[in-house]
């Protein structure tokens, strides 16, 4: 059972990590857009 739960948990950790990376990229890009607007 441990291996089963580990596999399911690992799957969602990988997906959530990737979603987190996407959110960070969005935030960085929004900052750049704000800077461009200020100029």
């Amino acid at each position, binding site marked *: 059972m441990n291996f089963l739960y580990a596999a399911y948990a690992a*799957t969602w950790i990988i997906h959530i990590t990737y979603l987190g990376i*996407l959110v960070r990229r969005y935030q960085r890009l929004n900052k750049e857009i704000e800077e461009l607007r200020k100029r």
Partner: protein
Amino acid sequence: MTDGMKMKRVFPILGLLTAVLLSYALYEALVAAPTEQTMGNVQRIFYYHVPSAWTAFLLFFINFVCSIQYLVRSNPVADKVTNWTVIAIGIAACVAAFVIRPLPEGMEPSSVATTGLAIVGLYFLIKKFFSPERTDALAVVSAEVGVVFCTVVLVTGPLWARPVWGIWWTWDVRLTSTLVLWLIYISYLMLRRFSTSGQTPVLAAALAIFGALDVPLVYFSIWIFRTQHPQPVIGGGGSIDPRMLRVLLINWLAFLCFAALVCWSRYRLEILQRDVEETQALEALLEPRSSR
């Protein structure tokens, strides 16, 4: 209301529906699916491992189609030749499915015909809705999300293998070719990330075409070579309990919806990023004049 605003409103609804579908698929996989007699509960890893692999293959195939289109659409003759080649592949697949007897191991008439039609459909759908520049963006997106799903396959596989085979990993053809596939697309993403050359999209497209050739090798390796990996459970003479098949397909549908949403978000990010880079480049060009 613009298309972008409509999309912004639709996105949370689709996100919620996907979350519900994923939760239902999880319940089906952990609770409703029957327990396999020899492996026990650890077999349930299959409901995440296999749909993730199929989704990764589909995304790498989209990357392959986008890469071809990016290369050929700048040349009208090459574009026409490719269009007719794709149509010929579709017709050949449909004819071969019902004429050639017996088909090579691992192929069933219905799956060969469906694959042929899907190739034609996907090729012309992408062509209709995406400009050459946008196909390049879609290629990056599909490769990146495909790598995420392929990572899931490479992590869940050993977690299943340890209790069933007694080892985490073996250098068997199916496992090794999947690892090579993952490495090819990692190198593709690194090329896109770190190369500053104007030729990067062309080089990446060429690499993606060679990378995609590994996908059929991974898929058919269990029929062509003697491997430790379990034999296919559907198609090619495999058999599976209909209740397990139902759970497998529900999970695949859930992962497909999830992958579509992630690709959509990543695609919007990619387009936005390109717009920002373009604006910054224009600004850099104009700066010396304004400072004079």
